[in-house]
């Protein structure tokens, strides 16, 4: 089977090349070609990758589940937290605190996408989830100590408050470390008695840390980030006595038609918030995800186990850096 160049073949090739060139030129004129790295395959990745990644995050999580917690002394207000977060920024990540903590109004106008010097490849873990649970733990260990204000838990205080701490592991049955002094201990959702009594607290959902890391964000999700980073503006909301932070978030997101996905993690006896407003964990790099704080403190346990009290201020914030950029990074392991 020798290849012979025949007239018919040449004509066919020429015609095909011509068609290609002509339609490409036309497309440039009509601006129809979106130069994106073949994004249609992306759906596939998200679909399978999402599930896998999620498992890693949750599992890797002896550290990370708690990483979404622990911070800030009782007296620290969210504003102060932000400032401290700023100091803690070691310059390398360029994350600034005020954007996170100075509230919804501050960052409105100039929070447009900043130029991307390094692009999405520069984000932690690269584009397609390159970090394993072990690598994440190692990375977390190399990141140094906890964020400022993150207090160590007090075992005696926690035990006094009714937390059953296993003497050998130093944690309770759902792998939670003791809480710092003055903080509420977890209340298991199956034991919580929800009454009809209406109470109020303050809720907000923000993702302004993404604004500082726009180049890390999945390009398909850019349109979802509000210009000021506020998904749910801080407002008074009603809850019923005995309800948890999770109950509150779920109800309010439903009532306000904001998308929210969670998954129940029996090992931590809590729901884990995977995404709000279609902004998911890992959308802004391998170290990104949702965290919550109540009265300025990032609890070291899941949101289904935090029982609300009258007047609590609940804030959901998106971190791009394991909580360091929002002042909620909790160093695991030695200290």
């Amino acid at each position, binding site marked *: 089977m020798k290849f012979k160049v025949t007239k018919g073949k040449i004509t066919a090739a020429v015609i095909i090349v011509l068609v290609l060139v002509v339609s490409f030129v036309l497309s440039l004129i009509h601006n129809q070609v979106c130069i994106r790295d073949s994004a249609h395959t992306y759906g596939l990745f*998200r679909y399978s990758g999402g599930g896998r990644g999620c498992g890693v995050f949750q599992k890797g999580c002896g550290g990370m589940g708690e990483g979404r917690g622990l911070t800030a002394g009782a007296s620290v207000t969210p504003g102060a937290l932000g400032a401290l977060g700023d100091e803690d920024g070691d310059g390398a990540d360029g994350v600034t605190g005020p954007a996170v903590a100075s509230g919804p109004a501050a960052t409105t106008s100039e929070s447009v996408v900043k130029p991307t010097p390094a692009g999405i490849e520069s984000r932690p873990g690269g584009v397609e989830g390159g970090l394993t649970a072990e690598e994440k733990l190692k990375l977390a260990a190399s990141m140094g100590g906890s964020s400022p204000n993150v207090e160590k838990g007090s075992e005696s205080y926690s035990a006094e408050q009714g937390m059953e701490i296993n003497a050998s592991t130093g944690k309770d049955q759902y792998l939670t470390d003791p809480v710092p002094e003055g903080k509420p201990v977890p209340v298991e959702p199956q034991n919580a008695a929800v009454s009809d009594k209406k109470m109020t607290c303050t809720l907000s959902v923000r993702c302004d840390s993404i604004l500082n890391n726009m180049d890390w964000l999945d390009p398909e999700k850019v349109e979802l980030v509000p210009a000021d980073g506020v998904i749910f503006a801080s407002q008074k909301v009603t809850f019923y006595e005995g309800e948890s932070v999770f109950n509150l978030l779920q109800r309010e997101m439903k009532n306000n038609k904001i998308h929210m996905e969670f998954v129940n993690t029996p090992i931590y006896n809590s729901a884990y918030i995977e995404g709000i407003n279609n902004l998911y964990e890992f959308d802004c790099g391998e170290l990104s995800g949702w965290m919550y704080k109540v009265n300025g403190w990032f609890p070291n346990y899941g949101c289904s186990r935090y029982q609300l009290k009258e007047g609590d201020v609940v804030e959901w914030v998106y971190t791009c850096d394991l909580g360091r950029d929002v002042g909620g990074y909790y160093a695991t392991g030695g200290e």
Partner: protein
Amino acid sequence: MPREASKTGWGGAAREGGAFAGYHPAVNFLYFAFVLIASMFFMHPVCLGISLCCAFLYSILLSGKRAVRFNFIYMIPMMLVAALVNPAFNHEGATILTYLRSGNPLTLESILYGFAAAVMMISVICWFSCYNAVMTSDKFIYLFGRVIPALSLILSMALRFVPRFKAQIKVISNAQRCVGRDVSNGSILQRARHGLTILSIMITWALENAIETADSMRSRGYGLPGRTAFSIFRFDRRDKIALAVIGGLGLYVFAGAAMGGLYWRYFPTTKGAFTGIYSISLFSAYGGLCLTPAVIELEETRKWKLLRSNI
């Protein structure tokens, strides 16, 4: 076995699987490589639709009523199930339709993606059934026997495994039925015992057969340097034309896809390239690529009818 002989006999090989199967194996292989890769990776709804329709059409052209029955009894329900399973696990998407019992949202995007994935799955299965009808193992060995002798032998044996086993199991159970030891004879316990016997005969045969095949291939010098392949395939003018058409259309479609002309996303909202001359040209090229063998088939039938009517 006479059954085997009639299937891959020299005269039969060219006609089995329709007119397109009579083309040179390189043409067949290139076509299936393009179509399968495209079906697996192009998640654009128009591409999926084209791929599904063409796969159904071609499978029906190849195996007639059997394919229709298979497609509608197994494929369509499978597609529906796969489509409905997705939203149960995937809750991403901007359009919330309602909330599931678990508390997570049911989104339009997850349903659409479920459908897209299901269509992709069954069209790929359907394409593979066409592939099996057209690319017989002798063609595969002819193409790759010299480049990757061991692998191509293993591949062609593995690909023939299931149909071959099915045929052999029928032979064994027929023989057993003659002596009253088939799965249709006796009480339940006896039937189970007979079934196991058949299975054991089957496995013995398979192991022995594998060794025999390997031995006979070796004794004939398979894979030795300088050994030529027995072939009944010639690469003539119509193969050149078909290769040029398939290659040209395929390259055009893949180049267009690489440039983002078939861009489509499902999350968080569904959108992508739909209109515009460029996209439409890509869709038509893709449709043309998928339809090539069907066109050849129909053209051949038309010619044959014409010839017969002229006699």
